[in-house]
């Protein structure tokens, strides 16, 4: 059998059309969770500065998974200065900092977790509003941890805009720009608890 050469032209055009569609379907930039921004904090600036037009850049993350139980869990993350687009600051643009909690999975129900940055040792997590980065909600945790015909078992992922907290922490005496402690404190819970966090990371935009 010999192929008709003229018939190849529309086929080639079809390939190119499909290829361009495949490339265009996913929008550029970071994963959805990373790009999500929390609403501005009540104590923040009244007129937020415009965000830069590039993707957030990873500046630090945990290397191994973290297990959360009924007592507060703490992890220290080494940070390094951004070397990509986030390293160059344009005038009038405020750098944003995001804390991401990725691949949170559990086989059992779990309470929400309060997430703190640089919570001092011995400090009671509950009233420590100053250090609070946000609340890690666990709605749908068990369901997202189990693979079905409609979704893989990726678990939950969340991100927090911690820009204003970062600025507040940077003014403290114990501030170390190369290391940051993240504390997860469970809300009231009287049942067994084991939640695995795949990765905790910091992104700068």
């Amino acid at each position, binding site marked *: 059998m010999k192929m008709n050469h003229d018939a190849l032209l529309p086929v080639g055009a079809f390939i190119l059309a499909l*290829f361009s569609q*495949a490339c265009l379907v996913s929008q550029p930039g*970071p994963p959805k969770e990373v790009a999500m921004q929390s609403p501005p904090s009540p104590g923040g600036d009244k007129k937020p500065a415009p965000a830069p037009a*590039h993707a957030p850049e990873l500046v630090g*993350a945990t290397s191994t998974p973290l297990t959360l139980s009924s007592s507060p869990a703490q992890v220290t993350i080494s940070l390094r200065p951004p070397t*990509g687009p986030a390293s160059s600051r344009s005038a009038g643009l405020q750098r944003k900092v995001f804390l991401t909690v990725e691949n949170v999975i559990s086989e059992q129900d779990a309470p929400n977790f309060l997430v703190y940055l640089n919570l001092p040792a011995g400090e009671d997590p509950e009233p420590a509003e100053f250090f609070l980065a946000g609340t890690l909600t666990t709605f749908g945790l068990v369901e997202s941890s189990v693979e079905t015909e409609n979704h893989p*078992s990726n678990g939950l992922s969340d991100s927090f805009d911690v820009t204003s907290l970062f600025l507040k922490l940077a003014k403290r005496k114990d501030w170390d720009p190369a290391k940051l402690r993240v504390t997860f404190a469970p809300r009231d819970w009287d049942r067994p608890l084991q939640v695995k966090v795949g990765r905790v990371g910091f992104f700068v935009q």
Partner: protein
Amino acid sequence: MISAQPSSPLPFPRQTLEAARRFFRLYPDWWCGALAALSWSLILSGAWSHGAHGAHGSTPFSRELSNWILMVAAMMLPLVLPMLRIASALSFWSRRHRTIALALTGFFFPWFALGLAAAAVRGFPWAHSPLAPPLAFAAAALWIATPFHRRGLIRCHSRLPLAPDGWRADRDCLRYGYAIGAACCASCWPLMLACAFTGHQLIAMVGGFAIGVLERTSFRPQRRKGIALTLTLAAFYLFQALTP
């Protein structure tokens, strides 16, 4: 009141350079897209010069394997670009290309193993029968109807935590690529085998790629459309087999 100054447009060469810089920043996986385009161009040029002579004539094992790899690169790379982009976005800026390269290596590993099996199967005379492609496409259509295909397809969207640096990061990138590749294999192996049975004909690969794009880019399952397209390919090759 201070009004904002309207930003003046950049001069032509700088504007183009800025646009290129933006593109390469946002799409660190651009070179994978280029590899896929190169693969398609090689396939097109091969189809142009050789037609479909490989369908019913036996080809050496090494040639069969290289054709398989070319086919996987052309058909699967465009589909896996979003996952590679996610992996690079979750890595340090300085590691983004390394992340993509390692994930790609992991991705190709299961496909290479399947390619070895496919090339070995193509060594048998029955694999060159005119009825082999339509039967293989019919089997692929049946596979699409099974929950195994759907599970494999869903696993293609798996996300694994990636360590930021060191050997753990390399290992995680390989593991992530392997997980996606194994899921892709589980989802599409009958379709790819059917394409191999046609002697890697352009029509089969374009059809298979169209099915892949349809399944990967739709939010809702496109099972019926996938089956219909695969059966169309089966009918096309059955017609070819029955016509002298």
